[in-house]
């Protein structure tokens, strides 16, 4: 079953060109050089400089990534009590990103609505934009096709950010352990702080997990840039 060599000779029926071209052509990047416009100042718009490192793993190896204090700059001299208060603030106001993929999304929504109210702990505003959220609650099965967009969402979230794996599918692949298109646990693609098992976990379970996350934030143990970044599952699995 060789994909791509389906040429059928001279006369092709209506709707020909049915078979895709070779996979290499499809997945080759489409590069559009900028030939339309050039700025007068060659150093403007970051001209001539390499782009900032955006990938988490490389960033984690740099100084700025390793040391949170670097981000405060001149405020380093403030003693750690302020950090404690800041973490207290963060823990009580974790804004989740509305990232419901499958069934667990319903339990997430159920825990956010009237009967099990997550707003009691400040987590009601489910932001639609990753730029405004703190926690990525991955609720639902992550498939290989969706993994790309989800990782892009994660990378778009500004630090400090935390990740919660909700449901068996995100913890370990769950009931789809043998599937050809399910990522076997999101910790293969992003660092996870709290795992909430269940299929689906009860809303009370999610709330318990979020409170544990708050505790993690307050203890500074879950500080995002001191964890290992990237897949935590060893290669031979």
């Amino acid at each position, binding site marked *: 079953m060789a994909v791509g060599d389906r040429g059928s000779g001279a006369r092709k029926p209506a709707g020909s060109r049915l078979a895709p071209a070779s996979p290499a052509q499809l997945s080759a990047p489409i590069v559009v050089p900028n030939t339309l416009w050039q700025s007068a100042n060659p150093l403007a718009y970051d001209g001539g400089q390499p782009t900032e490192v955006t990938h988490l793993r490389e960033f984690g190896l740099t100084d700025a990534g390793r040391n949170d204090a670097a981000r405060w700059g001149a405020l380093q001299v403030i003693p750690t009590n302020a950090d404690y208060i800041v973490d207290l603030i963060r823990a009580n106001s974790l804004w989740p990103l509305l990232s419901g993929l*499958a069934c667990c999304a*319903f339990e997430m929504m159920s825990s956010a609505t009237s009967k099990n109210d997550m707003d009691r702990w400040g987590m009601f505003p489910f932001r639609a934009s990753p730029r405004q959220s703190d926690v990525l609650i991955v609720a639902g099965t992550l498939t290989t096709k969706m993994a790309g967009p*989800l990782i892009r969402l994660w990378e778009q979230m500004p630090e400090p950010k935390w990740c919660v794996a909700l449901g068996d599918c995100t913890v370990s692949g769950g009931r789809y352990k043998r599937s050809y298109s399910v990522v076997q646990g999101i910790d293969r693609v992003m660092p996870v702080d709290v795992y909430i098992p269940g299929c689906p976990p009860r809303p009370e379970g999610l709330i318990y997990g979020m409170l544990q996350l708050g505790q993690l934030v307050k203890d500074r143990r879950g500080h995002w840039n001191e964890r290992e970044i990237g897949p935590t599952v060893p290669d031979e699995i």
Partner: protein
Amino acid sequence: MPPRQPASRPSKSRAGKRAPEPPQQYASTDDPRVMLDRQIGALFEPIPPYPTQTEREGEFYTLRDGEMFLNVGPHHPSTHGVLRLVVKLSGEQVVDVDPVLGYLHRGVEKICENSDYYHVIDQVDPLEYVSALFQEWPAVLSFEKLMDVQVPRRAEYIRVLTGELLRISSHILYVGFYALDLGGLTPILYSFIERDEIVEMLAALTGARMLFNYFRIGGVNGDLNHEFMSRLGDWMSRAAKEVESSATLLNENEIFVRRTRDVGVLDRAAALRYGVTGGNLRASGVPFDVRRAHPYSVYPELDFNIPTRDEGDSLARYLIRIDEIRESIKIIDQCLHNMPDGPVMASLPRLIRPRPGRAWAAVEGPRGMLGVYTISDGSDQPFRFRIHDPSLLNLETLPALATGHLLADTMTIIASLDPVMGGIDK
């Protein structure tokens, strides 16, 4: 002040005058200084030529003057799951829509080919996770056909009872999500109150809130218990009123009605050609409901109507769901009154090994006709397990319905079609 130039006015009479010759502005196209429109357009082409293969891709990914692509999803608060739409817009008006699916494709059919029949019933739940029992139902029906099993009447009544409860829950969630997609943040809270009650009731009966795994080949997993009956009685005593009030929050809301009336009109012939089933088909004038067209279980003994409307727009699809909620309450009432005694499970061998054969069974789910086609080869695993989900064909009407409307109406149409991506993507 500079001296005024004498104005030369053309004489007003036209006698003896011919039309003036147009100025010589057009050079020959052979002139190398002339660039044809398409050459000029190529300089400013914002989208590089997409490697098109199919006809539809070719015509979709070709932009005309003034059109642009907008990518909606797969992460978007309004798309009922992970659905990606590539919308071709001309200003605010939608010219074409290309839905991209597969962001939730979990390979359930392949897993089911490698699982035994009990596990298949469990695997099939999370497809349409909103109404999980309706996935199990055609699966057990087809397995029962393969094994020639007679289901006891009490089990049938319990199946209908739980099914209709879940249908009400799904329709109430539909109302809530419809409003949420249009921007109304209140009805979803009411919907989730109702849904939580129904789902807690079913959790008392089946053990799980959402992925029930309750139906079995030859019956159901457990008999009704006291907790379930007390919760159900409690709910039924106020169901009609509460459901009416939360479902009709939107009926007379002018914004809602004006945003949904005459939006996404699906006419009768197109609905049949698309293979649309369920409330979307009945809203277009075709009274096709599997419970009446091809009755299964104990539906022939129950008295209920099939609401049908003619308009085919989003408002009609919404109103059909409201009518169906009322019909479902009637059915639950009859089930409770006529519940027979007896076993809830036929006696079957422990190892399920149907004889070789093929079976198809279909039920009426909240979104349409859910069908399961099973091929058995005599072993304890199905040889082929195929699930036909109604949301796939419901969503296929989206390009035709959304063309010509505004971008915001696309969300209205998706919400009215009620797709569940778990079922679409399997």
